[in-house]
């Protein structure tokens, strides 16, 4: 990818925390509307990379390198410039929707808050938009739901609220940090399908951060594998997951496949995600079983 067409360009990003380079020279780029996955285990630096892009690193973190959005440098930018971008051009959803939401504010107000802040919506216009946005993310009975508080919703519904708020201003880039890790598997499938559909409709680029290789396969086209703060492998999701080049990626995939071999293929029509589930036949998994 040439620099000219990049929406987000991260070059030689380093984050130093407590004397350690927890992000140690990470470079990657996203084009407009592109979906990229950042994969890694705990301590790989994937979340800190995301926080560095958003300018949300904890105090005491020293960051160097370059993060360019639409060609404009974000590293070293003032808080004011960054908060102008966050919510409008850059949005983020987190693992725990319950901690991301304000427990004392009705969810409708939280959904429409970016519109009030960045688009100058009136209170009434924001309230109307909140209902539309709640409906767009598949929340039931949106008229009534916008008046409820976060604790009255399920975990999946709360994550839908976060997604609605994040996409309210149609940002150029959505960063999703383990957005389905805290959810049940059936809810996860719904949220992944929803997220995929909404970013495609809005033309929003997606930076998807996860430890779960199968989840990344469902939503991204390209990915970067992080380990100890460095990118060990990049490529299209399909290439990396089907023919990993780096030994660490191979090890990670072998470990992830261990709990996949034993699951039989399901009827693709029954699967909520777009990608058909491709797993080996029962015969091959019987051969791969070591234990019982």
């Amino acid at each position, binding site marked *: 990818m040439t620099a000219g067409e990049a929406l987000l360009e991260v070059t030689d990003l380093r984050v130093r925390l407590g004397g350690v380079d927890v992000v140690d020279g990470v470079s990657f780029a996203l084009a407009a509307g592109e979906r990229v996955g950042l994969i890694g285990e705990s301590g790989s630096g994937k979340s800190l990379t995301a926080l560095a892009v958003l300018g949300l690193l904890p105090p005491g973190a020293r960051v160097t390198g370059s993060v360019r959005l639409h060609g404009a440098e974000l590293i070293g930018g003032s808080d004011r410039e960054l908060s102008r971008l966050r919510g409008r051009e850059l949005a983020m959803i987190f693992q725990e929707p319950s901690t991301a939401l304000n427990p004392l504010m009705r969810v409708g107000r939280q959904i429409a808050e970016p519109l009030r802040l960045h688009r100058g919506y009136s209170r009434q216009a924001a309230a109307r938009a909140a209902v539309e946005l709640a409906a767009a993310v598949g929340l039931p009975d949106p008229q009534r739901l916008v008046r409820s508080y976060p604790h009255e919703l399920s975990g999946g519904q709360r994550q839908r609220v976060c997604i609605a708020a994040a996409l309210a201003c149609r940002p150029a880039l959505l960063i999703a940090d383990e957005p389905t890790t805290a959810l049940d598997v*059936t809810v996860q499938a719904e949220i992944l399908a929803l997220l995929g559909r909404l970013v495609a409709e809005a033309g929003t680029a997606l930076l998807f951060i996860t430890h779960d290789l199968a989840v990344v396969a469902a939503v991204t086209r390209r990915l970067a594998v992080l380990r100890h703060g460095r990118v060990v492998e990049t490529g299209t999701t399909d290439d990396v997951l089907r023919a990993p080049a780096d030994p660490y990626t191979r090890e990670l995939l072998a470990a992830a496949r*261990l*709990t996949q071999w*034993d699951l039989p293929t399901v009827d693709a029509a029954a699967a909520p995600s777009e990608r058909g589930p491709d797993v080996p036949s029962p015969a091959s998994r019987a051969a791969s079983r070591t234990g019982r």
Partner: protein
Amino acid sequence: MTAVGDRPGGGTSGGDTPGGDTPGAEPLFEATGLGRSYRLPRTSPFGPPGVRHAVRDVTLRLADGAALGIVGESGSGKSTLVRLLLGLDRPDAGTVRYRGRPVVPGRPRALRWFRREVQVVFQDPAGSLDPRMTVGAAIAEPLACLGVPGDHGERVDEVLRAVDLDPAVRGRYPHEFSGGQRQRIAIARALAPRPRVLVGDEPVSALDVSVRAQILDLLGQLAERHRLGLVLVSHDLGVVARLCDQIAVMRDGTLVEQGATDAVLSRPAHPYTQALLAAVPRLPPPHEVR
């Protein structure tokens, strides 16, 4: 509710006798008609208090040396079911029997015979190991509590080796270890009294993918080597499919489907099992043929 083998929409169990037990052989666990409900806080001062049926009419059995996986999403009642099976909670209805003897919560001493035979590994090893206790002391603790005779020091070394840890770690403290190593220590502690059954409550859910694979393999090897019965509670179908020959799928407090893992997963009869299976995200197959 149906007994193991009597799968709803039956006739599809693939000829496998679940658990491989011969008729007449005594099962390890036998739970019959188990129920447990909780009173919810009143929503109105006038109305009756609400009731939540955490577990409703659950019947299952675990044959000697078999591995049973209990799968369910959050709120399905799987943790309550495990507490009932372990005699940590008293059922409102039904009974739990272990090798024919009733498991009734009461004074710790009364269940000593049961605790020697059935040991538990929890999700979070950081929470289940006392940070002030050395690894050796933590592993020896259940032996002393359960009145196991013999040289506990020797047994500690044995179980540490069994979980692929150097016995020299005996004198160190839990915080000096990684999450995976701590889970190995927790498994060693569970193995120490030579149990017949190991119960794992989401034992690999807090671990990184690569560590998770190692711990799963270790559990499989240990179960095979020591002919341990295994009860594995997990939200992850893949984990259960890896280790268990029987599966019970739980939803809203009831078992919606149970039987041989291969049969249930290849031909799930209940719509919920089908949905659960369809929702598992899949990896694309590798290019090279294994």
